[in-house]
């Protein structure tokens, strides 16, 4: 082997080793913090669905991580349900893949003074171009919507993209997912406005976004479907 | 003979068609010989004050030194004038009685059937009449060192206006026949004679040429159209062409052995008094003023050497051309019409149907002027031009290739088969008032300079 070649290989090796060691160290050092951030983001969205003001009114900044953790330790309890039986699953059986496939259903309970006041669960589904992700919170009656948030989507800005706007999300508050007989309804996002279609009002519908019929239909569909998934469990609670 | 029918094109219904009558005009005063060939570099052979004989050399072509341009009259060289860049403009000769005219080889009609190429060229070069024969591509004076693939004789005229061969041939039938025989000596290929449906017996029955009749609107009479239909050219081909009216003079040269002194000129156009619109046999080089005196309408006119579509504007102090036998007189105008874009267009001629005249206006005659009828605008690709060029050429793209100096593209689009005059109708109808012929001319010049 010639000297030049040896030098070349030595240099290449040095660079490789240096880079990999450096990167591994940084990745390992930051891993915990990054995971905390992901978790924090998820929790933040749950809080939004529960109607917690996550931004400081004056500064407009997000509330601190400690505050979020405080909410979760004091007032929020997370459980995972089995979609088929509708029962809670022991923490050791929780499976992330099953959650993604909606075979296991995470549920957040908002407790005040030891009593559950609100429930929240993730809801997601196809819009026009993309999957829309959000959380839906229900009042104690397990039928009235307490809040909804859509935090990730890839819809057209100005059209379907309006789902992340407050005007759209706020209309959900107070609407009901059960009819008078206690059966789950087909929730509607009404094109052209609820007022026009139902002059007497409709508590199972919200106004659509003009120009985004398919996004609206998608939202209505996956909210209805996800509610039905959880409803098995809700019925047991209502029954008790 | 089944006529070849041309459907694309347009006969512009301009007033002033020359009558089929021939008047003799004589002239005593000065005569002028012009250097009127583009790209020719003249070398003078006389000085001011020299005495010249009828048929004596005045100047030669530096590129083709055998080609001599001769005096149509005996006299004294009164003045030699130069134009831009010290190029020869014209030689003015004051006629006087000469001693002995310069003579050329003389043949009988029968001899001419077989004198051979060299003998034919000898006379044509020595007399300068080879300059009446043009060579494609580039429409330059025929190059004697080239044997053309074929020769086209144009015995028709569809442009407004030119001399009628039926009139010009009267009394000169033999000379025309002699001209055809001479041409057959110059090429190994065919000599095509292209006729109008109205061609007289004398023209129709010419011997030695392959005859074809072309029928249809202008430019059915253009040589490019004839070449395209009879014997299309590839880029390497060379073809000669000559007008039948000019061929008469070539025939006269060989039959008489002296340089012809007269040519037939058509005087036409809306600017000419109706009674004066006719054919004239005039001494070559006579002043225009003498010819036109008393024949024009009142007002300002543009004197055009050639036809209204492809001719060149002349000054009134100039003389009858030795190579162009049409004179067209068009009134000048700067008239402005109120709200022209709104007018129904009964009084304004247009080939487009946006004017009422576009629907039926071509049935009557119009006293057209030099008015541009619009302003210059940028080019818009419409395919409109293609309706007026019966040559299987995409004119818009040819024009664009030339403007972009893309000579290869221009050649593959067929520019070498054409002559600027073929695009005169495009310029005529162009709503942006583009000078299509000028662009093509510039493109041809560029290709000629670069070489194919």
């Amino acid at each position, binding site marked *: 082997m010639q000297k*030049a070649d040896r*030098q*070349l290989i030595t*240099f*290449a090796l040095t*660079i*490789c080793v240096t*880079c990999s060691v*450096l*990167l591994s160290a*940084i*990745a390992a050092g*930051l891993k915990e*913090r*990054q995971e905390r*951030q*992901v978790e*924090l*983001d998820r929790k933040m969205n749950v809080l939004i669905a529960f109607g917690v003001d996550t931004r400081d009114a004056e500064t*407009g900044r997000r509330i601190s991580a400690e505050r979020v953790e405080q909410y979760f330790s004091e007032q929020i309890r997370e459980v995972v349900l089995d979609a088929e039986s509708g029962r809670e699953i022991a923490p050791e059986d929780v499976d992330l893949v099953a959650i993604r496939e909606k075979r296991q259903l995470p549920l957040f309970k908002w407790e005040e003074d030891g009593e559950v006041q609100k429930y929240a669960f993730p809801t997601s589904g196809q819009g026009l171009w993309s999957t829309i992700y959000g959380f839906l919170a229900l009042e104690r009656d397990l039928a009235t919507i307490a809040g909804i948030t859509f935090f990730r989507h890839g819809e*057209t*800005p*100005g*059209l379907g*993209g309006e789902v992340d706007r407050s005007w759209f999300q706020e209309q959900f508050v107070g609407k009901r997912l059960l009819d008078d007989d206690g059966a789950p309804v087909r929730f509607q996002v009404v094109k052209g406005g609820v007022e026009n279609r139902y002059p007497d009002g409709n508590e199972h519908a919200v106004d659509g976004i003009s120009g985004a019929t398919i996004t609206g239909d998608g939202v209505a569909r996956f909210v209805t479907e996800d509610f039905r998934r959880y409803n098995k469990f809700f019925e047991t609670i209502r029954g008790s | 003979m089944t006529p070849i029918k041309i459907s694309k094109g347009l006969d512009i219904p301009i007033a002033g068609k020359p009558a089929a009558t021939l008047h003799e005009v004589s002239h005593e005063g000065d005569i002028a010989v012009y250097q009127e060939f583009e790209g020719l570099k003249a070398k003078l052979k006389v000085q001011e004050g020299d005495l010249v004989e009828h048929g004596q050399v005045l100047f030669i072509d530096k590129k083709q030194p055998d080609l001599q341009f001769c005096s149509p009259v005996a006299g004294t060289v009164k003045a030699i004038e130069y134009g831009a860049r010290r190029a020869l403009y014209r030689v003015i000769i004051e006629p006087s009685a000469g001693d002995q005219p310069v003579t050329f080889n003389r043949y009988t009609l029968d001899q001419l059937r077989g004198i051979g190429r060299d003998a034919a060229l000898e006379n044509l070069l020595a007399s300068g009449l080879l300059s009446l024969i043009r060579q494609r591509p580039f429409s330059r004076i025929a190059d004697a060192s080239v044997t053309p693939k074929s020769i086209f004789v144009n015995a028709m005229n569809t442009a407004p206006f030119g001399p009628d061969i039926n009139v010009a041939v009267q009394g000169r039938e033999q000379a025309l026949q002699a001209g055809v025989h001479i041409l057959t000596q110059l090429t190994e290929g065919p000599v095509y004679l292209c006729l109008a449906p109205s061609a007289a017996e004398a023209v129709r029955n010419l011997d030695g040429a392959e005859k074809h009749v072309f029928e249809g609107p202008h430019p059915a009479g253009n040589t490019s159209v004839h070449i395209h239909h009879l014997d299309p050219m590839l880029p390497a081909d060379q073809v000669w062409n000559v007008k039948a009216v000019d061929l008469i003079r070539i025939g006269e040269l060989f039959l008489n052995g002296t340089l012809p002194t007269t040519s037939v000129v058509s005087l036409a156009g809306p600017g000419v008094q109706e009674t004066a619109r006719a054919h004239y046999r005039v001494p070559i080089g006579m002043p225009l003023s003498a010819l036109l005196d008393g024949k024009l309408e009142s007002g300002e006119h543009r004197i055009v050497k050639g036809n209204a579509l492809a001719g060149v504007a002349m000054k009134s102090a100039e003389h009858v051309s030795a190579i162009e036998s049409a004179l067209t007189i068009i009134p000048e105008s700067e008239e402005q019409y109120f709200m022209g874009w709104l007018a129904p267009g009964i009084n304004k001629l247009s080939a487009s149907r946006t004017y009422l005249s576009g629907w039926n206006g071509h049935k009557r005659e119009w006293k057209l002027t030099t008015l541009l009828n619009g302003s210059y605008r940028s080019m818009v690709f419409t395919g409109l031009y293609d309706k007026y060029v019966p040559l299987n050429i995409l004119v818009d793209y040819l024009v664009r290739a030339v403007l972009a100096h893309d000579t290869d593209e221009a050649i593959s689009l067929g520019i070498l088969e054409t002559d600027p005059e073929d695009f005169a109708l495009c310029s005529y109808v162009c709503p942006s008032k583009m000078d299509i012929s000028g662009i093509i001319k510039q493109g041809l010049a560029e290709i000629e300079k670069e070489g194919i």
Partner: protein
Amino acid sequence: MATAKKIISDPLSDNNPITIQVLGICSALAVTVQMETAFVMACALTAVLTSSNVIISLLRNHIPSRIRMIVEVSVIASLVVIVDQVLRAYLFELSRQLSIFVGLIITNCIVMGRAEAFAIQNPPGKSFMDGLGNSLGYSVILLLVASGREILGSGTWYGLNVLPQNYLGNGLAVLAPGAFLILGVIIWVQRTVTNNFKDD
């Protein structure tokens, strides 16, 4: 030092990496919807570009020329991964909005281009200046495009309302073609003003 000044000022207009050399367009389109993301992206690129220039300049006499490019890529890639990791740990939400575009700095022609064109044959001091100058040239355009897009698209600038509340956002400015248009207009204006545009 005149040359140092020129090294920094040249890439700002006369030789701007985006508007003149038309490099790094991909990220200029993707992250300029808001000032905030554009600013973070500009900082990330500045960090990567200056440090990659300095590191490669330091190594320039040792790098065997046969593996020159691969070493440059390794250095740049490592730096980019570090920046990406840090962003994820400390600016989670922004890093999610920037998504893969931070990672794509690796393939950003500006970084590789400066390493090849400048750092490999100049001392660290100058290379630092060059990296800084080009980062600034990139950042200026990025922030201009982002300003245009955020103001037109949402009526805000860096999250602050600059237009009346009832301003109707221009949806085109938010879409990627909007970035193309604004970038195109910037190039048009710059070339018209500096008369830098040459036919052929």
